[in-house]
Protein backbone atom coordinates (compact mmCIF):
# COMPACT_ATOMS: atom_id res chain seq x y z
CA UNK A 1 0.00 0.00 0.00
CA UNK A 2 1.30 3.41 -0.92
CA UNK A 3 -0.13 6.52 0.71
CA UNK A 4 0.71 10.06 -0.35
CA UNK A 5 0.01 12.75 2.24
CA UNK A 6 -0.12 16.36 1.07
CA UNK A 7 1.38 18.80 3.55
CA UNK A 8 1.09 22.57 3.12
CA UNK A 9 3.06 25.03 5.19
CA UNK A 10 1.06 28.14 6.15
CA UNK A 11 1.51 31.11 8.48
CA UNK A 12 0.31 30.43 12.02
CA UNK A 13 -3.07 32.11 12.56
CA UNK A 14 -1.64 34.08 15.47
CA UNK A 15 1.20 35.49 13.41
CA UNK A 16 0.85 39.05 12.13
CA UNK A 17 0.85 39.48 8.37
CA UNK A 18 2.50 42.39 6.57
CA UNK A 19 1.14 42.81 3.09
CA UNK A 20 3.58 43.42 0.24
CA UNK A 21 2.77 44.18 -3.38
CA UNK A 22 2.29 40.61 -4.65
CA UNK A 23 3.25 38.53 -1.63
CA UNK A 24 3.47 38.92 2.12
CA UNK A 25 6.56 40.07 3.94
CA UNK A 26 7.83 36.83 5.48
CA UNK A 27 10.03 38.45 8.13
CA UNK A 28 8.84 37.35 11.56
CA UNK A 29 6.17 34.99 10.24
CA UNK A 30 5.79 31.73 12.18
CA UNK A 31 5.10 28.80 9.85
CA UNK A 32 3.07 25.73 10.73
CA UNK A 33 1.56 22.72 8.96
CA UNK A 34 -1.98 23.67 7.92
CA UNK A 35 -4.13 22.12 10.70
CA UNK A 36 -6.30 19.97 8.41
CA UNK A 37 -3.16 18.47 6.85
CA UNK A 38 -2.16 17.22 10.32
CA UNK A 39 -5.33 15.10 10.32
CA UNK A 40 -4.25 13.79 6.91
CA UNK A 41 -0.74 12.87 8.11
CA UNK A 42 -2.16 11.12 11.17
CA UNK A 43 -4.67 9.16 9.08
CA UNK A 44 -1.99 8.10 6.61
CA UNK A 45 0.20 6.80 9.42
CA UNK A 46 -2.71 5.00 11.11
CA UNK A 47 -3.67 3.21 7.90
CA UNK A 48 -0.06 2.13 7.32
CA UNK A 49 0.14 0.89 10.92
CA UNK A 50 -2.84 -1.37 10.19
CA UNK A 51 -2.17 -2.50 6.64
CA UNK A 52 1.57 -1.98 6.13
CA UNK A 53 3.14 -0.12 3.23
CA UNK A 54 4.62 3.32 2.89
CA UNK A 55 3.55 6.88 3.68
CA UNK A 56 5.11 9.62 1.55
CA UNK A 57 4.73 13.24 2.66
CA UNK A 58 4.81 15.78 -0.15
CA UNK A 59 5.09 19.54 0.31
CA UNK A 60 5.14 22.20 -2.39
CA UNK A 61 6.74 25.56 -1.73
CA UNK A 62 10.06 27.35 -1.17
CA UNK A 63 12.99 26.02 0.89
CA UNK A 64 11.36 26.61 4.26
CA UNK A 65 8.70 23.91 3.65
CA UNK A 66 11.39 21.33 4.44
CA UNK A 67 10.64 22.13 8.12
CA UNK A 68 7.08 20.90 7.60
CA UNK A 69 8.41 17.71 6.02
CA UNK A 70 10.73 17.19 9.03
CA UNK A 71 7.69 17.46 11.30
CA UNK A 72 5.90 14.87 9.14
CA UNK A 73 8.97 12.61 9.48
CA UNK A 74 8.90 13.11 13.25
CA UNK A 75 5.24 12.05 13.29
CA UNK A 76 6.13 8.87 11.42
CA UNK A 77 6.00 9.15 7.64
CA UNK A 78 8.47 6.99 5.69
CA UNK A 79 9.61 9.31 2.93
CA UNK A 80 9.47 13.04 2.10
CA UNK A 81 9.40 14.89 -1.21
CA UNK A 82 9.82 18.65 -1.61
CA UNK A 83 8.40 20.18 -4.80
CA UNK A 84 10.48 23.33 -4.94
CA UNK A 85 8.59 26.41 -6.17
CA UNK A 86 8.20 30.05 -5.18
CA UNK A 87 5.54 30.59 -2.56
CA UNK A 88 3.20 32.76 -4.65
CA UNK A 89 2.77 29.83 -7.05
CA UNK A 90 0.72 28.14 -4.34
CA UNK A 91 -2.06 30.67 -5.04
CA UNK A 92 -2.68 28.81 -8.30
CA UNK A 93 -4.43 25.54 -7.48
CA UNK A 94 -4.52 24.26 -11.07
CA UNK A 95 -0.76 24.67 -11.45
CA UNK A 96 0.07 23.10 -8.09
CA UNK A 97 -2.39 20.24 -8.66
CA UNK A 98 -0.71 19.53 -12.01
CA UNK A 99 2.77 19.34 -10.44
CA UNK A 100 1.51 17.17 -7.60
CA UNK A 101 -0.62 14.91 -9.81
CA UNK A 102 2.37 14.27 -12.09
CA UNK A 103 4.48 13.37 -9.05
CA UNK A 104 1.80 11.08 -7.61
CA UNK A 105 1.21 9.38 -10.97
CA UNK A 106 4.84 8.26 -10.92
CA UNK A 107 4.43 6.99 -7.35
CA UNK A 108 1.32 4.95 -8.22
CA UNK A 109 -0.32 5.75 -4.88
CA UNK A 110 -3.35 3.83 -3.60
CA UNK A 111 -4.45 6.72 -1.40
CA UNK A 112 -3.85 10.47 -1.67
CA UNK A 113 -4.90 12.40 1.41
CA UNK A 114 -4.74 16.07 2.35
CA UNK A 115 -6.63 18.58 4.48
CA UNK A 116 -10.10 19.75 3.44
CA UNK A 117 -8.63 23.19 2.88
CA UNK A 118 -5.47 25.08 3.71
CA UNK A 119 -5.92 27.90 6.18
CA UNK A 120 -4.04 30.45 4.07
CA UNK A 121 -6.17 30.44 0.91
CA UNK A 122 -9.21 28.38 2.02
CA UNK A 123 -9.75 27.21 -1.55
CA UNK A 124 -10.55 23.47 -1.03
CA UNK A 125 -9.34 22.75 -4.55
CA UNK A 126 -5.99 20.99 -4.83
CA UNK A 127 -6.76 17.46 -3.58
CA UNK A 128 -9.94 17.14 -5.67
CA UNK A 129 -8.22 18.61 -8.71
CA UNK A 130 -5.53 15.93 -8.29
CA UNK A 131 -8.27 13.27 -8.22
CA UNK A 132 -9.66 14.62 -11.49
CA UNK A 133 -6.21 14.73 -13.08
CA UNK A 134 -5.49 11.14 -12.00
CA UNK A 135 -8.99 10.09 -13.10
CA UNK A 136 -9.80 8.61 -9.69
CA UNK A 137 -12.74 9.11 -7.27
CA UNK A 138 -12.50 11.38 -4.24
CA UNK A 139 -14.14 11.67 -0.85
CA UNK A 140 -14.25 15.19 0.62
CA UNK A 141 -14.55 16.16 4.30
CA UNK A 142 -13.91 12.67 5.72
CA UNK A 143 -14.83 12.21 9.39
CA UNK A 144 -14.19 8.47 9.39
CA UNK A 145 -12.23 6.35 6.96
CA UNK A 146 -12.02 2.58 6.54
CA UNK A 147 -9.63 1.31 3.94
CA UNK A 148 -8.60 -2.29 3.32
CA UNK A 149 -6.35 -1.48 0.39
CA UNK A 150 -9.12 -1.88 -2.17
CA UNK A 151 -12.52 -0.91 -0.80
CA UNK A 152 -12.89 2.49 0.88
CA UNK A 153 -15.81 3.32 3.14
CA UNK A 154 -16.01 6.78 4.64
CA UNK A 155 -18.34 8.97 6.63
CA UNK A 156 -18.10 12.52 5.45
CA UNK A 157 -19.58 15.88 6.39
CA UNK A 158 -22.25 17.17 4.05
CA UNK A 159 -24.49 20.18 4.37
CA UNK A 160 -26.79 19.56 7.32
CA UNK A 161 -25.24 16.29 8.49
CA UNK A 162 -23.17 13.33 7.41
CA UNK A 163 -23.11 10.85 4.55
CA UNK A 164 -21.58 7.39 4.34
CA UNK A 165 -20.03 6.64 0.97
CA UNK A 166 -18.17 3.77 -0.63
CA UNK A 167 -15.66 3.59 -3.45
CA UNK A 168 -12.61 1.71 -4.70
CA UNK A 169 -8.93 2.64 -4.47
CA UNK A 170 -7.04 4.46 -5.79
CA UNK A 171 -8.83 7.35 -4.18
CA UNK A 172 -8.17 10.91 -2.99
CA UNK A 173 -9.53 11.98 0.40
CA UNK A 174 -9.75 15.32 2.19
CA UNK A 175 -9.61 15.28 5.99
CA UNK A 176 -12.09 17.15 8.18
CA UNK A 177 -11.69 17.89 11.88
CA UNK A 178 -12.99 14.86 13.78
CA UNK A 179 -11.22 12.27 11.60
CA UNK A 180 -8.62 11.63 14.32
CA UNK A 181 -6.42 13.31 16.92
CA UNK A 182 -3.01 14.01 15.38
CA UNK A 183 -0.14 12.65 17.49
CA UNK A 184 2.64 14.86 18.81
CA UNK A 185 6.05 14.03 17.36
CA UNK A 186 8.20 12.18 19.92
CA UNK A 187 11.59 13.62 20.93
CA UNK A 188 13.21 10.54 19.38
CA UNK A 189 11.19 11.16 16.23
CA UNK A 190 12.27 14.79 16.08
CA UNK A 191 15.94 13.87 16.53
CA UNK A 192 15.92 11.18 13.85
CA UNK A 193 13.85 13.35 11.47
CA UNK A 194 16.76 15.80 11.23
CA UNK A 195 18.92 13.21 9.49
CA UNK A 196 16.35 11.81 7.08
CA UNK A 197 16.63 12.61 3.37
CA UNK A 198 14.24 14.96 1.59
CA UNK A 199 13.90 14.31 -2.14
CA UNK A 200 13.75 17.59 -4.12
CA UNK A 201 11.76 17.89 -7.36
CA UNK A 202 11.69 20.93 -9.62
CA UNK A 203 8.70 21.97 -11.76
CA UNK A 204 10.39 21.20 -15.09
CA UNK A 205 11.13 17.65 -13.88
CA UNK A 206 7.44 17.22 -13.18
CA UNK A 207 6.38 18.50 -16.60
CA UNK A 208 3.76 21.00 -15.57
CA UNK A 209 2.57 23.44 -18.22
CA UNK A 210 2.02 26.98 -16.96
CA UNK A 211 0.31 29.01 -14.27
CA UNK A 212 -3.29 30.03 -14.99
CA UNK A 213 -3.54 32.76 -12.38
CA UNK A 214 -2.14 36.26 -12.36
CA UNK A 215 -1.67 37.92 -9.00
CA UNK A 216 -2.88 41.48 -9.58
CA UNK A 217 -1.96 42.55 -6.08
CA UNK A 218 -2.37 42.14 -2.35
CA UNK A 219 -3.93 44.70 -0.08
CA UNK A 220 -4.73 45.09 3.61
CA UNK A 221 -8.24 44.07 4.71
CA UNK A 222 -10.96 46.69 4.24
CA UNK A 223 -11.56 48.83 7.35
CA UNK A 224 -14.33 47.59 9.64
CA UNK A 225 -17.41 49.68 10.28
CA UNK A 226 -16.34 51.44 13.46
CA UNK A 227 -17.90 49.99 16.56
CA UNK A 228 -19.28 51.29 19.81
CA UNK A 229 -20.29 49.90 23.16
CA UNK A 230 -23.93 50.49 24.00
CA UNK A 231 -24.87 52.03 27.34
CA UNK A 232 -28.02 50.97 29.15
CA UNK A 233 -29.36 50.62 32.67
CA UNK A 234 -30.64 47.06 32.29
CA UNK A 235 -31.11 44.14 29.88
CA UNK A 236 -34.35 45.60 28.53
CA UNK A 237 -32.54 48.84 27.73
CA UNK A 238 -29.78 46.97 25.87
CA UNK A 239 -32.37 44.94 23.97
CA UNK A 240 -34.37 47.91 22.74
CA UNK A 241 -31.21 49.81 21.74
CA UNK A 242 -29.85 46.81 19.85
CA UNK A 243 -33.10 46.20 17.98
CA UNK A 244 -33.17 49.86 17.00
CA UNK A 245 -29.51 49.86 15.90
CA UNK A 246 -29.83 46.68 13.83
CA UNK A 247 -33.11 47.69 12.20
CA UNK A 248 -32.69 51.43 11.65
CA UNK A 249 -28.94 52.03 11.52
CA UNK A 250 -27.47 48.80 10.11
CA UNK A 251 -30.73 47.77 8.43
CA UNK A 252 -29.77 44.09 8.60
CA UNK A 253 -32.82 42.73 10.42
Amino acid at each position, binding site marked *: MKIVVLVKQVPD*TETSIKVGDKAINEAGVKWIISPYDEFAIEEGIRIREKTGGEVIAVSLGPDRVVEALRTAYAMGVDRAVHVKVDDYVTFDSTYTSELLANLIKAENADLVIGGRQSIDT*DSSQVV*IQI*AERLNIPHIAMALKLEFDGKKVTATREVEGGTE*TVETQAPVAVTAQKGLNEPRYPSLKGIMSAKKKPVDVKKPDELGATASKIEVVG*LEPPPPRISGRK*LEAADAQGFA*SQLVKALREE*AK*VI
Partner: protein
Amino acid sequence: MADVLIVGELKDGELKKISKELTSAGRKIADAIGGKVHAVIITDNVDKFAGDLKAAGADTIVGANLGDFNPEAYANGIYSIIQEKKPSVVLIPHSSQGKEYSARVAIKANAGIVADAVGLSVDGGKVVAKKPIYSGKAYANFKVTSDIQIFTVRANSQEVTPKDGAGAVEKSGATAGEVRTKSLSKDLSGGNKVQLADASIIVSGGRGIKGPENWPLLQDLADTLGAALGASRATVDAGWISHSHQVGQTGKTVSPNCYIACGISGAIQHLAGMGSSKYIVAINKDGDAPIFKVATYGVVADLFEVVPALTSEFKKVLG
Protein backbone atom coordinates in the same frame (compact mmCIF):
# COMPACT_ATOMS: atom_id res chain seq x y z
CA MET B 1 -17.62 33.89 -26.43
CA ALA B 2 -18.13 36.52 -23.74
CA ASP B 3 -20.98 34.77 -21.99
CA VAL B 4 -21.23 34.15 -18.26
CA LEU B 5 -22.50 30.86 -16.89
CA ILE B 6 -23.60 30.63 -13.28
CA VAL B 7 -24.55 27.51 -11.38
CA GLY B 8 -27.32 27.97 -8.84
CA GLU B 9 -28.14 25.82 -5.85
CA LEU B 10 -31.36 24.52 -4.31
CA LYS B 11 -32.22 23.54 -0.76
CA ASP B 12 -35.28 21.38 -0.15
CA GLY B 13 -36.53 22.21 -3.63
CA GLU B 14 -36.25 25.99 -3.14
CA LEU B 15 -33.79 28.41 -4.70
CA LYS B 16 -30.97 29.43 -2.36
CA LYS B 17 -30.25 33.15 -2.22
CA ILE B 18 -26.74 32.55 -3.60
CA SER B 19 -28.35 31.56 -6.92
CA LYS B 20 -29.77 35.06 -7.33
CA GLU B 21 -26.56 36.64 -6.00
CA LEU B 22 -24.51 34.86 -8.66
CA THR B 23 -27.01 35.66 -11.42
CA SER B 24 -26.89 39.34 -10.51
CA ALA B 25 -23.08 39.31 -10.31
CA GLY B 26 -23.01 37.45 -13.64
CA ARG B 27 -25.29 40.07 -15.20
CA LYS B 28 -22.88 42.85 -14.23
CA ILE B 29 -19.89 40.97 -15.66
CA ALA B 30 -21.79 40.06 -18.87
CA ASP B 31 -22.83 43.69 -19.37
CA ALA B 32 -19.20 44.77 -19.00
CA ILE B 33 -17.78 42.19 -21.42
CA GLY B 34 -20.74 42.09 -23.79
CA GLY B 35 -22.30 38.65 -23.39
CA LYS B 36 -25.27 36.68 -22.14
CA VAL B 37 -25.99 35.15 -18.72
CA HIS B 38 -26.84 31.45 -18.52
CA ALA B 39 -28.13 30.29 -15.13
CA VAL B 40 -27.92 26.53 -14.59
CA ILE B 41 -30.07 24.84 -11.96
CA ILE B 42 -29.75 21.11 -11.27
CA THR B 43 -33.41 20.12 -11.30
CA ASP B 44 -36.09 18.49 -13.43
CA ASN B 45 -38.43 21.36 -12.58
CA VAL B 46 -36.59 24.42 -13.89
CA ASP B 47 -39.76 26.37 -14.77
CA LYS B 48 -40.37 26.94 -11.07
CA PHE B 49 -37.26 29.13 -10.79
CA ALA B 50 -37.38 30.91 -14.14
CA GLY B 51 -39.13 34.04 -12.86
CA ASP B 52 -36.70 34.69 -10.01
CA LEU B 53 -33.62 34.09 -12.18
CA LYS B 54 -34.92 36.20 -15.06
CA ALA B 55 -35.53 39.05 -12.60
CA ALA B 56 -31.94 38.73 -11.34
CA GLY B 57 -30.65 39.03 -14.92
CA ALA B 58 -30.59 35.55 -16.51
CA ASP B 59 -30.93 35.37 -20.31
CA THR B 60 -31.28 31.61 -20.33
CA ILE B 61 -32.31 29.43 -17.43
CA VAL B 62 -31.00 25.93 -17.98
CA GLY B 63 -32.41 22.96 -16.08
CA ALA B 64 -30.24 19.87 -15.86
CA ASN B 65 -31.52 16.67 -14.28
CA LEU B 66 -28.45 15.11 -12.66
CA GLY B 67 -30.12 13.39 -9.70
CA ASP B 68 -29.06 13.69 -6.06
CA PHE B 69 -25.81 15.49 -5.36
CA ASN B 70 -22.71 13.59 -6.37
CA PRO B 71 -19.59 15.66 -7.09
CA GLU B 72 -18.58 13.63 -10.14
CA ALA B 73 -22.10 13.67 -11.59
CA TYR B 74 -22.38 17.43 -11.13
CA ALA B 75 -18.90 17.99 -12.59
CA ASN B 76 -19.69 15.85 -15.65
CA GLY B 77 -23.08 17.47 -16.21
CA ILE B 78 -21.94 21.05 -15.68
CA TYR B 79 -18.89 20.54 -17.86
CA SER B 80 -21.05 19.33 -20.75
CA ILE B 81 -23.21 22.46 -20.42
CA ILE B 82 -20.02 24.57 -20.44
CA GLN B 83 -18.96 22.85 -23.66
CA GLU B 84 -22.32 23.69 -25.18
CA LYS B 85 -22.60 27.33 -23.99
CA LYS B 86 -18.89 28.19 -24.28
CA PRO B 87 -18.89 30.85 -21.56
CA SER B 88 -15.74 32.82 -20.80
CA VAL B 89 -16.70 33.23 -17.13
CA VAL B 90 -18.20 30.59 -14.81
CA LEU B 91 -19.48 31.44 -11.31
CA ILE B 92 -20.09 28.63 -8.80
CA PRO B 93 -21.22 28.95 -5.16
CA HIS B 94 -18.40 28.45 -2.62
CA SER B 95 -20.74 26.06 -0.81
CA SER B 96 -19.84 22.59 0.40
CA GLN B 97 -21.14 21.21 -2.91
CA GLY B 98 -19.70 23.96 -5.09
CA LYS B 99 -16.19 23.60 -3.64
CA GLU B 100 -16.27 19.92 -4.53
CA TYR B 101 -17.46 19.86 -8.12
CA SER B 102 -15.78 23.15 -9.15
CA ALA B 103 -12.35 21.53 -8.70
CA ARG B 104 -13.20 18.79 -11.20
CA VAL B 105 -14.90 21.21 -13.60
CA ALA B 106 -11.78 23.44 -13.65
CA ILE B 107 -9.54 20.54 -14.68
CA LYS B 108 -12.01 19.22 -17.28
CA ALA B 109 -12.24 22.73 -18.80
CA ASN B 110 -8.45 23.26 -18.59
CA ALA B 111 -9.29 26.50 -16.77
CA GLY B 112 -7.79 28.50 -13.96
CA ILE B 113 -9.96 28.92 -10.88
CA VAL B 114 -10.07 31.36 -7.98
CA ALA B 115 -12.03 29.98 -5.03
CA ASP B 116 -13.89 31.87 -2.30
CA ALA B 117 -14.11 35.21 -4.10
CA VAL B 118 -15.93 37.99 -2.23
CA GLY B 119 -15.49 40.71 -4.86
CA LEU B 120 -15.83 40.55 -8.66
CA SER B 121 -14.95 43.37 -11.05
CA VAL B 122 -13.88 43.60 -14.68
CA ASP B 123 -10.60 45.02 -15.97
CA GLY B 124 -9.54 44.82 -19.62
CA GLY B 125 -12.21 42.24 -20.40
CA LYS B 126 -11.03 39.93 -17.61
CA VAL B 127 -12.63 39.39 -14.22
CA VAL B 128 -10.64 40.50 -11.19
CA ALA B 129 -11.58 38.42 -8.17
CA LYS B 130 -10.91 39.66 -4.67
CA LYS B 131 -10.61 37.14 -1.86
CA PRO B 132 -9.55 37.18 1.79
CA ILE B 133 -6.35 35.21 2.46
CA TYR B 134 -4.39 34.39 5.64
CA SER B 135 -7.56 34.28 7.80
CA GLY B 136 -8.71 37.66 6.46
CA LYS B 137 -5.46 39.42 7.41
CA ALA B 138 -4.93 40.30 3.75
CA TYR B 139 -7.00 40.50 0.59
CA ALA B 140 -5.69 39.34 -2.77
CA ASN B 141 -6.79 40.25 -6.29
CA PHE B 142 -6.42 37.63 -8.99
CA LYS B 143 -7.07 37.35 -12.71
CA VAL B 144 -7.48 34.01 -14.42
CA THR B 145 -5.40 33.87 -17.60
CA SER B 146 -7.01 30.84 -19.31
CA ASP B 147 -9.81 31.21 -21.90
CA ILE B 148 -12.40 30.06 -19.38
CA GLN B 149 -12.24 31.87 -16.03
CA ILE B 150 -13.84 30.00 -13.12
CA PHE B 151 -14.66 31.50 -9.73
CA THR B 152 -16.34 30.11 -6.63
CA VAL B 153 -18.11 32.92 -4.80
CA ARG B 154 -18.85 33.27 -1.09
CA ALA B 155 -22.52 33.52 -0.08
CA ASN B 156 -23.77 36.98 0.95
CA SER B 157 -20.86 38.68 -0.82
CA GLN B 158 -22.84 39.81 -3.89
CA GLU B 159 -25.85 42.11 -4.03
CA VAL B 160 -29.02 41.05 -5.80
CA THR B 161 -30.04 43.93 -8.06
CA PRO B 162 -33.18 43.60 -10.14
CA LYS B 163 -32.47 43.68 -13.87
CA ASP B 164 -34.48 41.51 -16.21
CA GLY B 165 -32.64 39.16 -18.56
CA ALA B 166 -34.24 37.56 -21.61
CA GLY B 167 -35.38 34.68 -19.40
CA ALA B 168 -35.60 31.83 -21.92
CA VAL B 169 -36.06 28.44 -20.28
CA GLU B 170 -34.12 25.44 -21.60
CA LYS B 171 -33.93 21.83 -20.55
CA SER B 172 -30.45 20.42 -20.92
CA GLY B 173 -29.82 16.86 -21.96
CA ALA B 174 -26.64 16.79 -19.82
CA THR B 175 -26.16 13.50 -17.99
CA ALA B 176 -24.40 12.44 -14.80
CA GLY B 177 -21.92 10.24 -16.69
CA GLU B 178 -19.58 7.86 -14.90
CA VAL B 179 -19.73 8.13 -11.11
CA ARG B 180 -17.40 6.11 -8.91
CA THR B 181 -18.53 6.97 -5.37
CA LYS B 182 -21.73 5.41 -4.09
CA SER B 183 -23.78 6.98 -1.30
CA LEU B 184 -24.79 4.32 1.24
CA SER B 185 -26.72 6.46 3.73
CA LYS B 186 -27.25 9.99 4.99
CA ASP B 187 -27.86 11.28 8.50
CA LEU B 188 -29.24 14.80 8.59
CA SER B 189 -30.44 14.71 12.20
CA GLY B 190 -27.64 16.72 13.88
CA GLY B 191 -27.70 19.59 11.44
CA ASN B 192 -28.67 23.24 11.60
CA LYS B 193 -32.17 24.37 10.64
CA VAL B 194 -30.50 27.18 8.68
CA GLN B 195 -27.14 26.46 7.04
CA LEU B 196 -24.25 28.46 8.49
CA ALA B 197 -22.54 29.01 5.14
CA ASP B 198 -25.60 30.66 3.57
CA ALA B 199 -27.10 32.35 6.62
CA SER B 200 -27.50 36.11 6.46
CA ILE B 201 -27.90 36.18 10.25
CA ILE B 202 -26.02 33.94 12.73
CA VAL B 203 -26.57 33.68 16.47
CA SER B 204 -23.49 32.10 17.97
CA GLY B 205 -22.59 30.88 21.46
CA GLY B 206 -19.32 30.48 23.32
CA ARG B 207 -18.09 29.26 26.67
CA GLY B 208 -20.13 32.02 28.30
CA ILE B 209 -23.34 30.06 27.75
CA LYS B 210 -22.06 27.78 30.54
CA GLY B 211 -23.52 24.48 29.36
CA PRO B 212 -25.37 22.63 26.60
CA GLU B 213 -28.68 23.06 28.45
CA ASN B 214 -28.60 26.75 27.51
CA TRP B 215 -28.60 26.38 23.71
CA PRO B 216 -32.42 26.75 23.57
CA LEU B 217 -31.95 30.34 24.75
CA LEU B 218 -29.87 31.07 21.64
CA GLN B 219 -31.93 28.84 19.36
CA ASP B 220 -34.99 30.83 20.37
CA LEU B 221 -33.35 34.06 19.25
CA ALA B 222 -32.09 32.37 16.06
CA ASP B 223 -35.58 31.03 15.25
CA THR B 224 -37.08 34.48 15.80
CA LEU B 225 -34.60 35.98 13.32
CA GLY B 226 -34.55 33.07 10.85
CA ALA B 227 -30.87 32.77 11.76
CA ALA B 228 -28.43 29.85 11.87
CA LEU B 229 -27.00 28.68 15.19
CA GLY B 230 -23.21 28.91 15.45
CA ALA B 231 -20.76 27.86 18.13
CA SER B 232 -17.20 28.54 19.23
CA ARG B 233 -14.54 25.85 19.26
CA ALA B 234 -14.59 25.68 23.07
CA THR B 235 -18.25 24.61 23.12
CA VAL B 236 -17.69 22.01 20.38
CA ASP B 237 -14.58 20.58 22.08
CA ALA B 238 -16.52 20.40 25.36
CA GLY B 239 -19.11 18.26 23.58
CA TRP B 240 -21.93 20.76 24.05
CA ILE B 241 -22.85 20.80 20.33
CA SER B 242 -21.86 19.04 17.10
CA HIS B 243 -18.87 20.21 15.08
CA SER B 244 -21.11 21.15 12.16
CA HIS B 245 -22.03 24.29 14.14
CA GLN B 246 -18.45 25.43 14.70
CA VAL B 247 -17.45 28.81 13.31
CA GLY B 248 -13.76 29.60 12.99
CA GLN B 249 -10.44 28.27 11.84
CA THR B 250 -11.24 24.58 12.23
CA GLY B 251 -14.94 25.13 11.64
CA LYS B 252 -16.80 27.12 9.05
CA THR B 253 -15.90 30.46 7.53
CA VAL B 254 -19.00 32.64 7.43
CA SER B 255 -19.84 36.10 6.09
CA PRO B 256 -23.34 36.93 7.30
CA ASN B 257 -24.80 40.42 7.29
CA CYS B 258 -25.18 40.14 11.05
CA TYR B 259 -23.27 37.94 13.52
CA ILE B 260 -24.51 37.94 17.11
CA ALA B 261 -21.76 36.56 19.37
CA CYS B 262 -23.09 35.53 22.79
CA GLY B 263 -20.55 34.72 25.49
CA ILE B 264 -17.75 34.43 22.92
CA SER B 265 -14.43 35.92 23.98
CA GLY B 266 -13.13 36.15 20.39
CA ALA B 267 -9.99 34.02 20.07
CA ILE B 268 -8.07 34.82 16.89
CA GLN B 269 -9.09 31.46 15.40
CA HIS B 270 -12.75 32.40 15.91
CA LEU B 271 -12.26 35.85 14.40
CA ALA B 272 -10.62 34.14 11.39
CA GLY B 273 -13.95 32.44 10.67
CA MET B 274 -16.36 35.31 11.21
CA GLY B 275 -14.29 38.49 10.93
CA SER B 276 -15.71 39.32 7.51
CA SER B 277 -19.29 39.48 8.86
CA LYS B 278 -20.78 42.85 7.93
CA TYR B 279 -22.19 43.76 11.36
CA ILE B 280 -21.03 42.07 14.54
CA VAL B 281 -22.91 42.21 17.84
CA ALA B 282 -20.99 41.06 20.91
CA ILE B 283 -22.76 40.25 24.17
CA ASN B 284 -20.27 39.41 26.89
CA LYS B 285 -19.86 40.16 30.60
CA ASP B 286 -16.12 40.73 30.18
CA GLY B 287 -15.70 44.20 28.69
CA ASP B 288 -12.03 43.45 27.88
CA ALA B 289 -12.86 40.43 25.69
CA PRO B 290 -11.13 40.68 22.26
CA ILE B 291 -14.48 40.22 20.48
CA PHE B 292 -15.27 43.86 21.32
CA LYS B 293 -12.39 44.97 19.08
CA VAL B 294 -14.31 43.78 16.01
CA ALA B 295 -17.86 44.33 17.28
CA THR B 296 -20.03 46.97 15.62
CA TYR B 297 -22.28 46.97 18.68
CA GLY B 298 -20.88 45.87 22.01
CA VAL B 299 -23.06 44.94 24.97
CA VAL B 300 -21.15 44.43 28.21
CA ALA B 301 -23.77 42.55 30.21
CA ASP B 302 -25.02 39.13 31.25
CA LEU B 303 -26.17 37.21 28.17
CA PHE B 304 -28.67 35.26 30.29
CA GLU B 305 -30.56 38.51 30.79
CA VAL B 306 -29.90 40.27 27.48
CA VAL B 307 -30.60 37.38 25.06
CA PRO B 308 -34.16 36.65 26.29
CA ALA B 309 -34.93 40.38 26.35
CA LEU B 310 -33.62 40.66 22.80
CA THR B 311 -35.71 37.69 21.64
CA SER B 312 -38.91 39.14 23.05
CA GLU B 313 -38.13 42.61 21.69
CA PHE B 314 -37.56 41.16 18.18
CA LYS B 315 -40.74 39.08 18.48
CA LYS B 316 -42.63 42.31 19.13
CA VAL B 317 -41.23 44.26 16.18
CA LEU B 318 -41.08 41.37 13.72
CA GLY B 319 -44.61 40.25 14.60
